[in-house]
């Protein structure tokens, strides 16, 4: 305990304004250099950057597989690859996109970078665990790739038994890989929840928490509750194949439907692991570019938690035709409709935030507009699929494929791209080409719709998913869809091109190019190694655009603040503050 005046937990503490530097000489990328420093870093920002690179890599691998699948579907019979290869390709497209891209994309990449900055913390609660999480992810990815090269898998990403426990190929290795990746996800969840609870800056009460942090909190809850069940399920498939334990094998007295219960107990909540962090990005971007307080702060924050809660009660809607009791199907159907409520609350609140805002359509917001349209279609078709009578008809058709691509690509990937564009200046210190970003957004939006709208039509006409051959009446739809996928691929390549180009020739970014009030924008661009040179003191929420910028840059100087009492002891009120403006 030093000379800190603040330790007396009085209402009055001496705070000071700290203006961020636009282009400091020292930042997190050059304070420690060299390959070894990168590989052993416990800095959440570098780990976030490494995750971002890794998920981008796997997005391209998965994307190429999608293009191959779409190309094969150009003709009703064989176009250029064998049926077996086709089965492996769509399996790997699904498995890679779900486990290696969608699940870690926003939490582990953007979340790692942004969360401690938004909390005013120097790092996540367990920095070494964070690094371990990254290496578990890489190890799992390598095991999965090893499985692909040594026999491959053709089960679909869902690994349904008894097919998965009896088919050839490297299913055991693959599930082991996914098992390891699951632990990476669990550790991220443990880390984030603890960080949000324990490492918030003085004055950062729960009602001043950014909505991105709230969404990561909800996501982490799902991660820690659902992922262990996936882990044990995959371990059981492995045991089934090695020892023939027969838990899921009806021939030995087991129950294949039990596998489906276990699998969807994880995998349905996992859908929300993928989309809820995207919701957080939407809230941040919407508020920043409307220059307006977010409408319905608590409604948005708590609806994330509500989605997390309901997500655990709806897994049975994947099993309407699997032979579960019809009463169970009715209950699951009803509960599934409930998901529409918190999701709808979010959509309405975001729209209301735009109302009478001074909207500045920069590229991050444009991506969010794309998100709105595509996610709305994805969400509403989800309601259609939740109705039992319709689902019996639409189950396992292209309608389902189109539905979850609208949610996952139209929703999640658009939100991810919005987040990447939004935080790119903070992460890299560079601005990308705004015109190209808008054009790319348009191309992706058009390409996406051309790819997946026809799939709704052919799905409702009965085209089953995953089929290699199809009847000729579907050929025009498939061909339009394939052309759309090329447009979509072009759009993503364009994004990759101008983002990478900006690293070398982009204009230097200022500390707060969007004029945001959120805490991560009140520090240097790029941030210093330990994020803050002072202890930030929070008196306003992150969306209080009606208050002057100087009130968002307050803090205690490091020397006096070091070692003062529990953070929550300090009560900072607007009235009690003293600002020593420069």
């Amino acid at each position: 305990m030093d000379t800190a005046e603040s330790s007396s937990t009085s209402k009055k503490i001496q705070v000071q304004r700290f203006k961020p530097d636009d282009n400091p000489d020292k930042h997190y990328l050059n304070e420690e250099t060299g390959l070894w420093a990168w590989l052993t870093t416990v800095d959440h920002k570098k780990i976030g950057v490494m995750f971002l690179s890794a998920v981008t890599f796997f997005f391209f691998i998965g994307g190429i597989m999608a293009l191959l699948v779409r190309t094969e579907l150009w003709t009703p019979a064989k176009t250029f690859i064998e049926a077996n290869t086709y089965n492996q390709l769509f399996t790997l497209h699904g498995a890679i996109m779900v486990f290696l891209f969608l699940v870690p994309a926003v939490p582990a990449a953007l979340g790692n970078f942004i969360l401690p900055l938004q909390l005013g913390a120097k790092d996540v609660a367990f920095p070494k665990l964070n690094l371990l999480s990254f290496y578990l992810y890489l190890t799992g990815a390598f095991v999965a790739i090893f499985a692909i090269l040594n026999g491959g898998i053709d089960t679909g990403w869902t690994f349904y038994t008894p097919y998965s426990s009896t088919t050839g190929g490297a299913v055991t290795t693959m599930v082991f890989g996914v098992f390891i990746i699951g632990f990476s996800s669990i550790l991220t969840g443990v880390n984030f929840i603890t960080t949000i609870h324990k490492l918030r800056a003085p004055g950062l009460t729960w009602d001043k928490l950014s909505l991105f942090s709230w969404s990561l909190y909800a996501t982490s809850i799902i991660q820690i509750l659902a992922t262990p069940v996936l882990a044990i399920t995959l371990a059981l498939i492995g045991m089934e194949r090695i020892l023939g334990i027969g838990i899921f094998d009806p021939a030995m007295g087991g129950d294949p439907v039990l596998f489906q219960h276990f699998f969807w107990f994880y995998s349905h909540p996992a859908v929300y692991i993928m989309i809820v962090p995207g919701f957080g990005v939407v809230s941040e971007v919407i508020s920043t570019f409307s220059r307006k307080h977010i409408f319905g702060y608590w409604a948005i924050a708590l609806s994330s938690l509500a989605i997390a809660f309901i997500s655990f009660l709806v897994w049975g809607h994947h099993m309407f035709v699997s032979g579960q009791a019809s009463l169970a199907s009715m209950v699951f159907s009803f509960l599934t409709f409930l998901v529409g409520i918190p999701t709808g609350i979010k959509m309405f609140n975001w729209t209301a935030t735009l109302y009478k805002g001074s909207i500045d359509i920069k590229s991050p917001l444009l991506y969010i507009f794309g998100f709105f349209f595509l996610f709305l279609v994805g969400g509403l078709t989800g309601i259609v699929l939740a109705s039992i009578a319709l689902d019996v008809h639409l189950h396992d058709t292209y309608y389902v494929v189109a539905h979850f691509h609208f949610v996952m690509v139209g929703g999640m990937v658009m939100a991810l791209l919005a987040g990447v564009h939004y935080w790119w200046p903070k992460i890299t210190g560079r601005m990308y080409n705004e015109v190209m970003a808008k054009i790319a957004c348009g191309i992706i939006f058009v390409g996406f719709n051309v790819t997946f709208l026809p799939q709704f039509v052919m799905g409702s006409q009965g085209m089953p998913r995953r089929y290699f051959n199809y009847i000729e009446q579907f050929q025009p739809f498939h061909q339009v869809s394939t052309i759309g996928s090329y447009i979509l691929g072009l759009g993503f390549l364009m994004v990759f091109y101008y983002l990478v180009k900006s690293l070398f020739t982009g204009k230097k970014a200022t500390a707060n190019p969007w004029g945001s009030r959120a805490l991560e924008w009140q520090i240097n661009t790029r941030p210093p190694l330990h994020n803050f040179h002072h202890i930030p003191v929070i008196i306003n929420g992150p969306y209080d655009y009606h208050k002057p910028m100087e009130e968002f840059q307050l803090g205690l100087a490091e020397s006096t603040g070091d070692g003062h009492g529990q953070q929550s002891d300090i009560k900072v009120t607007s009235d009690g503050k003293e600002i020593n403006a420069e």
Partner: protein
Amino acid sequence: MADHSSSTTHSRFFQHHFVDADQQFETAKMGMWIFLVTEILMFGGLFAAYIVFRLWYPDLFTQASTQLNTFWGGVNTVVLIGSSLTVAMAIKSAQLNQKKNIAINLGITLALAAVFMVIKYFEWTHKFELGIFPGQFYDFGGIEHEKANVFFSLYYLMTGLHGIHVLIGMGLMGWLLWRSLKNHFDSEYYTPIEITGLYWHLVDIIWIFLFPLFYLIE
């Protein structure tokens, strides 16, 4: 709780991203509690499978359970509960700054865990001799039920996963013992003992559920 709240920020195990030692302690503890939740969910999958198959084949479970040795299962239960006591005593010793007792209590905990695993080893190998193997390798004629393999698959899976946790716990106890002999722990800093203790209690509690579910059914 002990007096770890004098909040030295100068301990050699203090990490810079925390405000004080108190915050570091509370954070580590919360992280472990959350991790324990994930453990419960992981075992939860197996317990759910147990419930399903017990409802399907109630006769099988009562018959097959007779093959398990209640006496040695009971001994193991006492052994594990005892080790939970000693790990709690290790934490108490740390809080009272009795550095020698930390090492002694951790040593006893480690030894009791080893006793548990030795008994488990003899239980398993005895069954292997009878031909009671898991899954498709099951080869035992003593139970008049065609799905007898299902019971033993569950038995091996659940006690096996629990055993893996005991082994991990033994590794952690060994590491703590080594550190306590190097004088790393005192009343100011004993976070690793505290959170490993939490983990160890969970391992104990899971066994307390496994024991009646497999050994004591009639």
